[in-house]
């Protein structure tokens, strides 16, 4: 065989696969360790802070979860229900009803005053007549003047 052809045949030589795999894994893992060694002070500090912050946040989260569970004892619906007195609740409810009625009453009184005042101002001459009549005869009441009489007076 020609020398150049023989030299080309040497290309068939291959490394052992097991060695290649082991060497590859070792090199790629080794580098990470070497990289950490080459980091500057500030890079190391930044990485440490990142880790510390993550840990702190995790601790806070765990604390909040545990705190939530312990607070559940005081705010759970069963606890709230047992602490309530039905009698006092009923009394409170009744008190609310009374207050509502009183409020309605006040509103009714105010309404009747307003209506009487507005009637007086709207009636004008009728009201005058009404006043005259009441001054002439103190014993007579407003009920004594009928609507027909009032209309008749107005037409005059």
């Amino acid at each position, binding site marked *: 065989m020609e020398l150049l052809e*023989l*030299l080309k045949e040497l*290309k068939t*030589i*291959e*490394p052992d696969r097991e060695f290649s795999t082991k*060497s590859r894994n070792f*090199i*790629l893992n*080794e580098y990470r360790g070497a990289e950490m060694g080459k980091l500057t002070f500030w890079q190391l500090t930044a990485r440490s802070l990142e880790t510390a912050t993550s840990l702190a946040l995790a601790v806070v989260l765990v604390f909040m979860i545990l705190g939530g569970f312990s607070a559940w004892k005081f705010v759970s619906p069963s606890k709230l229900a047992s602490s309530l007195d039905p009698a006092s609740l009923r009394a409170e409810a009744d008190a609310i009803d009374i207050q509502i009625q009183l409020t309605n009453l006040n509103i009714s009184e105010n309404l009747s005053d307003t209506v009487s005042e507005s009637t007086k101002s709207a009636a004008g001459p009728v009201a005058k007549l009404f006043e005259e009549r009441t001054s002439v005869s103190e014993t007579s009441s407003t009920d004594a003047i009928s609507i027909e009489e009032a209309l008749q007076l107005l037409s005059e």
Partner: protein
Amino acid sequence: MLDGEEKIIKRAVEGKSSAFGSLYDHYHSKIYRFVLMKVSRREEAEDITHQVFLSAWQNIKSYKDLGYPFSSWLYRIARNQVADYYRSKKSESSLENFDPEYFISPATISLDLSLKMEMEKVILAIRKLKPEYQDVIIMRFVEDMPVKETAEAIQKSEGAVKLLQHRAIKELKKILS
């Protein structure tokens, strides 16, 4: 050259181990063959190849793309590693310590016996050449590397590579005859 090599190298320089893994997969066999033809034992070739890639990965940030393939850079590291090996193990590197069984990897066992013997003879002859002749023979005729790439790897001009390859083949033929 690996497809999309520029991007892969860029990612490897940024520290992406998966990118360097791709480069390792593509160039590992080439560097192993290069080293194996220069040292006497398979285990030593494996150790040196491992050191080449470890060194490449640890110094990947210093790699600068000057328009040559990544292989040129790897071959330069390999040449330095082999030189270091011979400096540290000078007394053990004689041909008397050579074990032909370790020269050929298990992948070549299935080859024809006479071809295998001829290949071993050629490898022995290569080992008798001067280091720069060895480099040129392996890169140009075993790995089919272009003159430009070889010149970059051995840090010589293209003209010097052509001259070296001519002399190296002549010397190799002389040894084999």
